[in-house]
């Protein structure tokens, strides 16, 4: 590498630097819609409803990477609300005026660096009024640090990890039940049915760790004896060792926390090894219709916590009942809503209600309104505590019964009786 | 001007070997196995100060393996090697080089992506083994020496070329230059003349003689060119199948029945190019 070589490529370097600068330059307030570097889509279903202004929301949600599937649900959830608020509801009512809504989306690729940068880009370049959360606790962690710094409200429905709310942030609100409470309803219902012991396995990452810790807490609370706790790494391909250990402990209840893959792995390993506890509670998976589709009959009797189900008896004046929402969603996207989709819609709805209550787009007023918010929605009650968690909403529990996802707990939302105990695999 | 930019030695002695003196390089019972195959089998030999010794043998007789063992690239399976009276059997290759033993290679090993000039400079680690001095600039003496050698080896016109762009003969010359850079006491030349044009071979011969007589350098040559050997060497050592076959003056060796048998075997061969 000679001196001269550096000189030779300098024009290129400069060109690149200038281009980069140019990419970020059109952040000037005069052209908010300028299509700059990383912008991908800007969803605005504007209709002739005579609204005076536009509220600009921003969201960096995974389009690619490890959360591609959940990210898609999240987007569709936001867009369901967007479509409804602009076309049917006639814009957000702020004071006497009405505002159309626009959401600026970016793809965070499942990378926290990117999520943080995009959050910053949304705030400083796109100058959005409020931020909607990304999918997953880790990404919310990264993005919310930025919004907190700018004192911008980020409302989210897809980051349930407890550590999110232990940082004393003022601008982060989450409509979903936090991870620690995921297994509460299910364990309570099982304890009521006479279960006495439990084993717990969870993936050693942020969100499942919270679920696992919560499960231990609730198990103790309801008098279930904890026989074993196991962790496993991300992308695990074989859990047979864990299931072997658990089988020999003969627990009443198995609790598995992780991701969709892990749910499939647990069922398969239990089946193969003849591990038949009286109940299997698996945190992510069972409530997703795709789980039944993939696992088939073996899915029966499996219990899963759920943030929301279309069969729940919640309803509001906006989307109607949970079932009405599901019908609307399916009409738009051709598939039934997952709870990720519903909580995303509820996230945006909560923000809208707070804006309307505040009668202003000012962050401080809206923050106050969010803190004061106490409403019932199709998604369930929303009532934020001082840390920004939704303290009002209990976690539901579903059980797969003859291939159908039925809500079995809590009692006020249940549509079906809990079937307990689960028959052994070879006795079905 | 001194063509090699070598420091003139006080002890510059005549070129005759001193069989009674302590050997400069000595191998005792040097044995090397590759799997079950003995590439070197209990070879004893010695190179004396100021001597030019030839090492010959048919292909596959273990000459290069012996060089590799001497420079410690290969571990010997048994036996000891002494250089300047020091047991170097367990030395690392670079330590052997620092003791003053340099070599060239049958298959050319120059640093192809570095220039001729850099190749030369790098061959003399002026900082010794100290890491700190590796960041200093080369002393003038080192540069003078490199310049002298480059011009001696007729490489000055390609001094700034990448070594990989040189012709095979030029690369061989460069290798010799690199071997001479650290001012070694003993130089092992592995087929230094292959691919070099005849005029240049005469030059090299002349320079070796000069280095030997004026600067007291000892040489151990592996060669196929018998004239080169017989003109230069005072003693010749013959290896066959990893074993010492004969040792003596070039004339003696050329008349040795065993050697002729080993070389020409049944089908005879070319007298000129062994």
């Amino acid at each position, binding site marked *: 590498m000679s001196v001269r070589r550096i000189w030779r490529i*300098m024009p290129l370097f400069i060109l690149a630097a200038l281009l980069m600068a140019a990419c970020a330059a059109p952040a000037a307030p005069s052209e908010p819609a300028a299509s700059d570097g990383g912008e991908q889509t800007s969803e605005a279903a504007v209709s002739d409803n005579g609204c005076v202004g536009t509220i600009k929301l921003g969201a960096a949600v995974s389009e690619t990477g490890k959360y591609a599937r959940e990210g898609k649900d999240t987007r569709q959830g936001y867009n369901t609300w967007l479509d409804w608020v602009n076309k049917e509801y006639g814009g957000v009512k702020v004071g006497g005026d009405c505002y159309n809504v626009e959401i600026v989306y970016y793809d965070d690729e499942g990378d926290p660096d990117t999520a943080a940068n995009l959050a910053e880009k949304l705030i400083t370049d796109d100058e959005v009024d409020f931020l909607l959360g990304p999918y997953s606790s880790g990404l919310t962690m990264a993005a919310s*640090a930025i919004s907190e710094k700018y004192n911008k409200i980020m409302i989210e429905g897809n980051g349930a990890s407890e550590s999110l709310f232990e940082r004393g942030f003022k601008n982060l609100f989450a409509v979903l039940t936090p991870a620690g409470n995921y297994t509460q309803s299910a364990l309570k219902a099982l304890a009521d049915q006479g279960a006495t012991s439990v084993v717990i396995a969870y993936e050693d990452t942020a969100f499942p760790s919270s679920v696992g810790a919560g499960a231990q807490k609730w198990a103790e609370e309801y008098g279930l004896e904890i026989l074993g706790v196991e962790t496993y790494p991300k992308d695990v391909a074989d859990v047979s060792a864990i299931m072997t250990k658990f089988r020999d402990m003969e627990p009443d209840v198995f609790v598995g926390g992780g991701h969709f893959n892990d749910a499939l792995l647990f069922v398969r390993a239990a089946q193969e090894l003849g591990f038949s506890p009286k109940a299997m509670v698996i945190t992510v998976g069972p409530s997703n219709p795709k789980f039944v589709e993939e696992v088939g009959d073996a899915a029966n009797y499996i219990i899963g916590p759920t943030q929301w189900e279309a069969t729940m008896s919640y309803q509001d004046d906006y989307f109607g009942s949970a079932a009405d929402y599901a019908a609307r969603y399916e009409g738009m996207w051709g598939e039934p809503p997952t709870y990720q989709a519903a909580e995303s819609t509820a996230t945006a709805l909560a923000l809208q209600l707070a804006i309307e209550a505040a009668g202003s787009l000012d962050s401080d007023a809206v923050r106050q309104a969010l803190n004061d918010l106490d409403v019932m929605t199709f998604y369930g009650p929303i009532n934020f505590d001082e840390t920004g968690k939704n303290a009002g909403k209990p976690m539901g529990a579903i059980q797969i019964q003859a291939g159908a996802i039925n809500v079995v707990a809590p009692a006020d939302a249940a549509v079906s009786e809990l079937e307990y105990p689960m028959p052994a695999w070879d006795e079905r | 001007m001194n063509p090699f930019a070598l420091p003139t030695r006080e002890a510059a002695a005549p070129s005759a070997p001193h069989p009674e003196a302590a050997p400069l390089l000595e191998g005792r019972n040097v044995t090397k196995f590759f799997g079950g195959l003995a590439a070197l089998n209990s070879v004893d030999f010695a190179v004396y100060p100021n001597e030019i010794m030839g090492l010959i043998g048919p292909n596959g007789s273990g000459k290069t393996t012996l060089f590799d063992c001497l420079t410690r690239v290969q571990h010997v399976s048994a036996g000891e090697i002494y250089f300047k009276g020091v047991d170097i059997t367990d030395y690392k290759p*670079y330590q052997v080089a620092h003791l003053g033993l340099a070599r060239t290679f049958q298959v050319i090993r120059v640093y192809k992506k570095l220039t001729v000039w850099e190749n030369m400079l790098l061959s003399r680690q002026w900082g010794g083994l100290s890491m700190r001095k590796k960041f200093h600039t080369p002393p003038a003496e080192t540069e003078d020496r490199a310049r002298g050698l480059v011009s001696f080896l007729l490489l000055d016109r390609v001094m700034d070329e990448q070594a990989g762009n040189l012709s095979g003969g030029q690369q061989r010359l460069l290798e010799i230059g690199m071997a001479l850079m650290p001012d070694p006491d003993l130089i092992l030349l592995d087929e230094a003349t292959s691919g070099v044009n005849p005029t240049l071979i005469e030059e090299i011969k002349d320079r070796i003689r000069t280095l030997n007589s004026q600067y007291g350098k000892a040489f151990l040559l592996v060669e196929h060119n018998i004239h080169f050997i017989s003109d230069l060497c005072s003693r010749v050592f013959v290896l066959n199948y990893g074993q010492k076959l004969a040792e003596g003056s070039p004339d003696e060796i050329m008349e040795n029945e065993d050697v002729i048998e080993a070389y020409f075997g049944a089908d005879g061969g070319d007298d000129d190019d062994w």
Partner: protein
Amino acid sequence: MRTLTEIWKRYKLGPLVLILLVLFLFLLPLPRWLAPERKLVSNSLLFSLTQLFMLVTLASDWNMTGGFTGYIDFGHAVFFGIGAYGAGVMMAKAGWPFVPALIVGAVAAAIFAVLIGSATLRLKGPYFSIAMLGTFVAMREIVRVLRPITGGGSGLTLPPYLNRPLFYYVTLILAVLVVAFVWWLRRTQFGATLVAIREDEVGAEMRGINTTLHKITIFWIAAFFTGIVGALWAYQNTFIDPDVVFFESRTIELVMMTMLGGLGTVAGPVIGVTVIYWLRDILWSNFLQFHLLVEGVLLIVIVLFFPEGIMGLLNDPSATSLGRLWGRYLGEGPKDAYQSTETETSV
């Protein structure tokens, strides 16, 4: 084209432009304070550039072992991770301020490099690459298992401190420093020796070079700088867990960027990082669904058709001579070296 190059050379525009560029980068954030209301320089831009500088530093570090010494390290991000966790643990668990924590992280990375390097650097070619990849993955899981210290899979939350201009300047200075260091290094005997090791390690050893010592030295130097970047990244991200810190594709991206710029050249990593970083932005906006797909295709095209990278393309092989510079430069000073090279080329 020729005349342009000649003007470029004759008026020695290179150093001028280089200095102007660095100066430009140093002055870039100024409008934030001079004319804050115009919002000319957003935090997002600074953040992007900060990331760019970090990548430049990382790629230059990787290039020290991968490009110059020829040891293709597929687990280089392990030093990034150790730097991040070293600093993170000191801050989150021991409550240290950032600067001493950063030093702990960087030193830990360097020490680990010496330890692991003395084992793995004895391996050749792909075996070294794989051993380092294994080290990287093993370290990620080890960090996960050491829950009491590292917070396990839940990670560690660092006190948020999001001063973009500060990070911008720190990383800019670090990048300039590291690139300058590599530039200087290549001109020392040490640097040339590294290339010699790449070209022919056995030969170098037989010519009196203690190759092991050289390899380990450059390895820990690279690891040290990488550890610094890791610590900075952790602080800026405010949150670390094993999966975000020990991110598989981080290393391979560095390899790809360095290769695009030119393996074993000083400017290579800088150019490669800049081009790919910028390219990504374009890909994002134009090939949303497909941008990774397009990236894969680009990678193959780069590797197959420009294995020497952009630097290789720019180089006229007949006029590239390091030794000429080496000799003249060391003997006569930089300006003359530059000039004399020019005269020779024009002859």
